[in-house]
């Protein structure tokens, strides 16, 4: 990873009270059949924050992301994005309003090349993606941007490979490159590191950090790699059985005995 | 009143015929995801086989009908097995290509039947009882409708039992989703696929023999002419739901009868509208499992 500067000093940027909340959920709930999957979750994320979301498997993290991004519809509660109520907006409307996400299992255009995948993201962000009158060009802004993003995540040498032919870890990197190219203001990252080789983890950590620091993006991060979560997060939210157990600074959360037993598995 | 009874009962009979044609199709399509355009050819071949039997036996005895059904089913199963082994197997998990080979097969076989048995229909007769009618609430119901209904119910129960009491259903549903993973669990998924294809083919063979009894003829186009209704029924019923196909068969046939009688022969159009309406309201069909 030559493109990211290693050793950027780390400091927790604590949210101050009454700041600008960019994404919020109030009383969010999801019931399917008889099962309660998400139960009365309320959450406010200030602009520029990196909020880690942790919790045992099946706690509802991915489902929460689905509700926030519009992939699923809540049965209760509301979602606000940048001050607007988006509870009933579609996935694409929320994306246009500046929300981006990655998927826990890679979700790509497997029959298109890596370059084309990222280019589509870049073009979508720039608008005019469905124009009949304009053509993708090698030198156009979206392509140039796409190639730069690939460089950033270390996939430049795979630009012309079909996305379906990438190895698992490389697909994760491509997901992030697409996100970078789309340049959303609010980002939901669902286990971006799962399956990424240890060698590439630091680089991706830097990429995520730069999303927040340099682009001022607000990031929600689900991740089971605790060192990564702790390294990056300003605050930590803990999900358990579909509810939000806690949402506080990392030290407080990590000290919580429930978190210790249910999540970390340390019989403290 | 007697007219309505007549329409309903013959409608149910027609529904039974649709179901007989659709059952094998639905089984194969629902479990394996193969939209088998050659199903009509299996059916036609079963019908010709049945005819060859009955014309060699003394025409018109019950024994020869039963034997026709057995031979029709066997021939249907055999061609289905051959199709699966030679064509479908090479294209697992490539559903579009599978549809395409069956399209090619359908084209080729109909032409082949033309060459073998000629383009003219050959006429089939069965036990005399089938051509007679009985009065039900003042309506003259042809007996062959009862035979159709009986066999359709038997086929439905038979296939349901097969799926319930063997592992095949499970193996195939899993195999369609991810074939290599099923083999990675130590299961010979190819065998299971062949068995299901054979059963679908046997159902087509039975359907063919009975359809030829019902229409009184066999021609190279016999199967193809019924296929489109079988598709519609399968899709309205919902992916992979045999019960759905049964219900849809009845609904389509009865609706078609009523529309033909009361709405000046608009049965076809009504069925098309029904299909569009059902799919738009419930994209997965009446009883489709998958959303």
């Amino acid at each position, binding site marked *: 990873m030559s493109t990211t500067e290693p050793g950027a000093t780390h400091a927790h940027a604590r949210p101050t009270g009454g700041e600008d909340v960019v994404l919020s959920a109030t009383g969010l709930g999801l019931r399917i059949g008889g099962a309660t999957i998400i139960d009365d979750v309320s959450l406010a994320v200030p602009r520029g924050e990196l909020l880690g979301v942790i919790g045992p498997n099946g706690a509802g993290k991915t489902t929460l992301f689905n509700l926030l991004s519009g992939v699923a519809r809540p049965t209760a509660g509301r979602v606000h994005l940048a001050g607007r109520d988006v509870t009933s907006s579609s996935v694409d409307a929320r994306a246009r309003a500046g929300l981006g996400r990655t998927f826990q299992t890679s979700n790509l255009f497997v029959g298109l090349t890596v370059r084309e995948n990222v280019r589509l993201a870049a073009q979508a962000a720039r608008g005019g993606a469905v124009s009949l009158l304009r053509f993708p060009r090698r030198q156009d802004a979206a392509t140039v941007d796409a190639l730069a993003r690939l460089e950033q995540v270390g996939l430049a040498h795979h630009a012309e490979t079909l996305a379906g032919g990438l190895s698992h870890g490389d697909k994760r990197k491509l997901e992030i490159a697409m996100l970078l190219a789309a340049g959303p203001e609010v980002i939901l990252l669902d286990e971006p590191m799962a399956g990424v080789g240890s060698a590439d983890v630091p680089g991706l950590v830097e990429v995520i950090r730069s999303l927040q620091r340099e682009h001022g993006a607000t990031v929600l991060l689900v991740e089971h790699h605790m060192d990564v979560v702790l390294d990056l997060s300003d605050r930590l939210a803990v999900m358990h059985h579909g509810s939000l157990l806690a949402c506080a600074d990392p030290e407080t959360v990590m000290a919580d005995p429930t978190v210790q037993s249910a999540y970390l598995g340390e019989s403290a | 009143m007697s007219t309505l009874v007549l329409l309903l009962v013959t409608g149910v009979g027609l529904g039974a015929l649709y179901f007989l044609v659709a059952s094998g199709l639905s089984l194969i399509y629902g479990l394996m995801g193969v939209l088998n355009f050659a199903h009509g050819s299996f059916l036609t071949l079963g019908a010709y086989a049945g005819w060859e039997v009955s014309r060699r036996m003394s025409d018109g005895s019950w024994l020869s009908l039963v034997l026709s059904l057995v031979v029709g089913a066997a021939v249907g199963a055999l061609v289905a097995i051959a199709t699966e082994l030679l064509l479908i197997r090479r294209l697992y998990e490539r559903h579009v290509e599978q549809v395409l080979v069956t399209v090619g097969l359908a084209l080729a076989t109909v032409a082949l039947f033309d060459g073998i048995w000629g383009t003219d229909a050959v006429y089939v007769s069965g036990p005399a009882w089938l051509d007679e009618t009985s009065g039900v609430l003042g309506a*003259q119901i042809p007996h062959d409708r009862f035979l159709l209904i009986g066999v359709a119910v038997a086929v439905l129960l038979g296939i349901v039992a097969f799926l319930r009491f063997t592992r095949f259903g499970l193996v195939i549903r899993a195999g369609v989703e991810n074939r290599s993973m099923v083999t990675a669990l130590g299961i010979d998924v190819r065998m299971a696929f062949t068995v299901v294809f054979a059963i679908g083919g046997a159902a087509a063979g039975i359907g063919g023999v009975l359809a030829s009894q019902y*229409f009184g003829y066999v021609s190279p186009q016999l199967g193809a002419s019924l296929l489109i209704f079988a598709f519609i029924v399968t899709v309205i019923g919902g992916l992979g739901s045999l019960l759905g196909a049964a219900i849809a068969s009845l609904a389509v046939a009865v609706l078609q*009868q009523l529309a033909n*009688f009361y709405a000046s022969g608009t049965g*076809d159009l009504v069925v098309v509208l029904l299909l569009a309406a059902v799919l738009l309201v419930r994209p997965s069909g009446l009883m489709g499992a998958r959303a």
Partner: protein
Amino acid sequence: PSSDGDDSAEGSSAVDVAVIYSETGPLAAYGAAYRAGLEAGLDYATDGTGEVDGQAIELSFSDDAGDSAKAVSLAKDAIGSGTQIVVGTVSSGVALPLAEQAEQNKILYISGPAAADAITGINDYTFRSGRQTYQDVATAGALLGDPSGQKVVVFGQDNAFGQGNAAAVDAVLGAAGADVQSVLVPEDATEFTPFARRILDAKPDLVFVAWAGDTTAAMWQSLSQQQVFDAAPVTTGLADVASYNAYGAASDQITFLSHYFADGPDNEVNDAMVASLEEAGETPDLFSPDGFVAGQMIAHAVAEGGGDVDAMVAALEGWTFDGPKGETTVRAEDHALIQPMYAASLVADGDGWTPELVEEIDADTVAPPVAGE
């Protein structure tokens, strides 16, 4: 007609005739009967020489498989390579585009078994060698006697053929005072019981059935089962030999009108045709005379008109000759083929059924009105 000198100049070269017909496809059986008839007819008209005035008549057969696009392409190929005479095709959907080609390119076209009334009088270059729907219907009318006040129900398929028949019945019998009503069945329908009920509900005095295709047997069975035969006499066109077993239980209750069956006509030409067909291992069938007459017409046109299309057209117009169905006339005004028709019944004969002549209907009685008037 051109001068004799011209004729002899061309005498050495052969006259090409393009025969476009269904060798394969759903109507292949009709195609086969037509072809056999045509070969027999030309043979008969040229006394076995295949030559007229020293000019050989070369038939080149090609297969349209019932597809009009193919037929047009074959016709263009033939016309483009200088052929002046195109004959054939068994389906109306192919005959009409071919007629169109004849007009566009000013060549002689003699249509085959296609029954559509529309072919008659369609243009100056198109003739027909078979019967047309109107003649079928008029035959039924003749069987009915005085139709005035009678209720006639036309039972047919809801397509051009069925609707054409319904229209013709209305024109023939309706004009004579009958009350004509039609029950038309969607083409793809497979269950005919409701339609049989509709016939009964109409309380007809005569039922005229116009049906083609494989579902014939099922349709007749439904009519029998719903006791339509008890309600009114039923008449229909007798189709080809292969279909004699399609009528099932109803066979001996139907009065058939017939275009042709081997025992219908009683004349020398027919005897010759039957003999010649049997010699070639063919069975005389419904469309044998259509081919045979086409052969006669070709020979006559070439003999009288030489290679000139207008002359051939002129030669055929108004020509009266002895065909397998007896005296036959090409009406000058619209090229309708004026010919006798037959009434027949089916009688059991061992396992199957054979047609028997009931009555020959005079050609003029069933002649269609002049088209376009």
